C-alpha cells in the first residue's frame, strides 16, 4: 500500500468491459527525504493509475491498495484491474512531529494550521 497525491484523472472509452464506469486517477506515490536531519515527504517521479470508488479530487492525498485488497473495495474480484484508492488521507505523522498534511498548493504544512477539519488524532 502507498500514500500518494492525486495529480489528475484519465478517461478511456475503449476499455475492457469489466472496467465500465470506473473512475481512474493518476497518482504520485510519496517517498522519504531528509531535510535538515529530519524526515520529510516528497512526491516520487513515478506515476501510477488507480480506480477511485471513494471520490478523491486532484491535489488530495490518498491511500492506495493493490491486488485483491483493491478489488475488494471495487466490489468484485473478477475485474481486469489491480489498484484502487481505499482512503483519503487527513493527516500523516512523521517521527514525533505534529501531524502534517498537504495544503492546496502542495506544500507540507502542520495539519492543525489548515482551515477546518477535526484534529488528526481523532480521525483514525
Amino acid at each position: 500500500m502507498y500514500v500518494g497525491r492525486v495529480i489528475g484523472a484519465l478517461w478511456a472509452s475503449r476499455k475492457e468491459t469489466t472496467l465500465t464506469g470506473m473512475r481512474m486517477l493518476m497518482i504520485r506515490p510519496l517517498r522519504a527525504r531528509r531535510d535538515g536531519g529530519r524526515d520529510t515527504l516528497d512526491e516520487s517521479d513515478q506515476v501510477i493509475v488507480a480506480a477511485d470508488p471513494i471520490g478523491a479530487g486532484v491535489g488530495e492525498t490518498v491511500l492506495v491498495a493493490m491486488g485483491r485488497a483493491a478489488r475488494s473495495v471495487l466490489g468484485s474480484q473478477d475485474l481486469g484491474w489491480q489498484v484502487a484508492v481505499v482512503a483519503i488521507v487527513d493527516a500523516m505523522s512523521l517521527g514525533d512531529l505534529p501531524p502534517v498534511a498537504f495544503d492546496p498548493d502542495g506544500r507540507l504544512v502542520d495539519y492543525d494550521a489548515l482551515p477546518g477539519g477535526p484534529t488528526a488524532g481523532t480521525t483514525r
Partner: protein
Amino acid sequence: MLTGRVVGEVWASRRHETLGGLRLLIVDPHVVKDRATDPKTAALVVAADTVDAGIGDEVIVAYGRAGRSAIRRGHDIAVEAAVVGVIDDRSGPELG
C-alpha cells in the same frame, strides 16, 4: 516481504469501511546505505500494524494474502500490507 523503518502514521476519516480501527503505519523501506539517494527512489509503504510497532522501530512487512492473514479479518478487506514483526537485531551491510 521487506524490512524498513517506521517513520510515521496515516489518519483517514473518509475511507473504505474495512479499514476502520486499523493503525496504518508509514514504513520507509530499507536500502543498502552506500546506494541510498536523497530523496530515496523507492516510495514509502503503508502497512497495517499487527505487533504494536512504534515510530523508529525497524520492522518486517508482509504483503498480500500473508499480510491479511496476520490482520485476521479475512481477505475481503482493503489492506494489502501488514507489519508482522519488529526487528531486534540484524547483521549484514549498513542499511538506510
